[in-house]
């Protein structure tokens, strides 16, 4: 009996997209139900995960984990103050495991990527396992900088604004702010046509990352001046350590919603462009985004829901379901590998009652269920009841000591596991070094 061929796989990752800004996630109860009609439609047609959880609140603590299925170890050769050390640590982590794109490559897939996030570059070994690696940035050798954006201001900066006598805002050093899918989509379509099947295409877009500069055609709430004002007001608040006033907070939230509209248009465009190849599409964001909750904007080193809860759906298989159990993104390598075999996808095989998340330096850990979250930091431990207190304001350890104890036990098991994996990492590194020395 003939078996169906392995399907093409399209993996769309969006930077900093909050779960509650995708209408399907809270289905009529969320504050922003109408921003993402395409995401909602595809989630409805496929398998919609409403409780997907990122392994970390920022790209460096999330994407390396969901590409390898493993948390990063307590590597001593870096500090948070040393960005090259942080990059090197990610690179060592990516080389330590056979990660997602390599697994698919071994299964006969031609693998290609367009990635706009600066933590997922050749320097951090994300090119391993990709036949065609396209880093989208102002300084990339893969994609001409003119493809980064179709913004007029960007084109001025890219054309040499830095050479002008006056650039008071410093746009020339902030070209990444303008990273927009509309700039390089045509290029993506061209590369897509060249891929042999089955292919794995990973696209990692930055459009909903700060500072939310969005093409005019997708903006419904903000004029250009409001968009740029909110960026500069936010940046001023950050650098001067000043609180952001209420009117600016509202404006920042509105610019973010416009950015989410642009992301939805991107998903629509990708869906249309890849439809002739009948792919299975997996969609998720790498982490969420704070819009003033807990005194934060963007994605700080915190483990609150606004930063950890993410949208995720699988479209194009025979399966159709709304899955309300937790999906830790850490399990994506297994999920995507399973999708290579038609007819075998079981969404609930990938859900877990407990999900662990960590910040980049592993100094804060969250153990989450659909109701509870235990967060342990150096300053102490807090238990949140996510149903009764979705804003995570009250520590209820004394009210629910058995819950706190059970989750603490899971945290301890996670830490013991990481310690054991750290021991094998050291031993393996020594072994490989010794082997090289003997050659």
């Amino acid at each position, binding site marked *: 009996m003939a078996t169906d061929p392995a399907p093409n796989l399209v993996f769309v990752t969006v930077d900093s997209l909050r779960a509650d800004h995708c209408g399907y996630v809270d289905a009529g109860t969320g504050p922003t139900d109408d921003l993402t009609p395409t995401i909602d439609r595809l989630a409805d047609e496929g398998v919609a995960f409403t409780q997907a959880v990122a392994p970390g609140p*920022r790209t*460096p603590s999330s994407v390396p984990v969901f590409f390898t299925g493993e948390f990063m170890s307590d590597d001593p050769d870096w500090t*948070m*103050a040393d*960005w*090259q050390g942080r*990059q*090197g640590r990610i*690179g*060592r982590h990516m*080389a*330590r*495991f*056979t990660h997602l794109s390599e697994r698919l490559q071994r299964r006969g897939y031609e693998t290609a990527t367009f990635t706009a996030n*600066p*933590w997922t*570059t*050749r*320097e*951090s*070994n994300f*090119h*391993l396992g990709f036949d065609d690696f396209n*880093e989208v*940035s*102002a*300084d*990339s*050798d893969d994609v001409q900088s003119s493809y980064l954006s179709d913004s007029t201001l960007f084109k001025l900066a890219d054309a040499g604004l830095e050479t002008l006598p006056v650039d008071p805002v410093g746009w020339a*050093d*902030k*070209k*990444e*702010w303008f990273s927009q899918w509309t700039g390089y989509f045509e290029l993506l379509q061209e590369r897509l046509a060249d891929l042999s099947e089955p292919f794995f295409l990973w696209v990692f877009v*930055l459009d909903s*990352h*700060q500072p939310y500069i969005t093409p005019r055609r997708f903006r419904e709430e903000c004029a250009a001046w409001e968009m740029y004002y909110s960026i500069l007001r936010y940046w001023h608040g*950050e650098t001067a350590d000043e609180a952001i006033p209420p009117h600016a907070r509202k404006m920042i939230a509105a610019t973010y919603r416009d950015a989410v509209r642009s992301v939805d248009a991107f998903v629509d465009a990708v869906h249309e462009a890849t439809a002739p190849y009948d792919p299975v599409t997996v969609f998720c964001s790498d982490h969420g985004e704070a819009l003033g909750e807990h005194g934060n904007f*963007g994605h700080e*080193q915190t483990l609150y829901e606004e930063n950890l809860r993410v949208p995720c759906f699988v479209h194009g298989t025979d399966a159709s379901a709304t899955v309300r159990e937790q999906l830790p993104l850490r399990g994506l390598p297994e999920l995507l590998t399973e999708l290579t075999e038609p007819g075998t996808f079981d969404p609930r095989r990938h859900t877990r009652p407990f999900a662990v998340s960590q910040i980049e330096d592993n100094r804060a850990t969250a153990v989450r269920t659909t109701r509870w979250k235990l967060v342990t930091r150096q300053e102490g431990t807090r238990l949140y009841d996510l149903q009764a207190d979705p804003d995570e304001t009250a520590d209820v350890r004394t009210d629910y000591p058995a819950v706190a104890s059970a989750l603490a036990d899971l945290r*301890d*098991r*996670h830490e*013991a*596991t990481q310690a*054991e*994996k750290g021991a*094998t*990492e050291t031993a*393996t*590194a020594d*072994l*490989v070094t010794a*082997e*090289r020395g003997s050659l």
Partner: protein
Amino acid sequence: MTEISLSDDLAERIEGRIDGTEFDGVDEYAEFVLGEVLARVEHDAAESQEETASREQVQNRLQSLGYLEE
């Protein structure tokens, strides 16, 4: 799946190491360790990290996106 056999002594030593961890059993531990060793050997990790952009360019990218405030 391919089954392999381990000596009782080795299996017991692994069981001793995975007590209190998330490893489900000896199989999972052996799969993890072998997978790590092979990935290391195949990647030749020390030589795989490439440098394409200048230090200043990368630093500017990370800075502009708010990643260097720590």
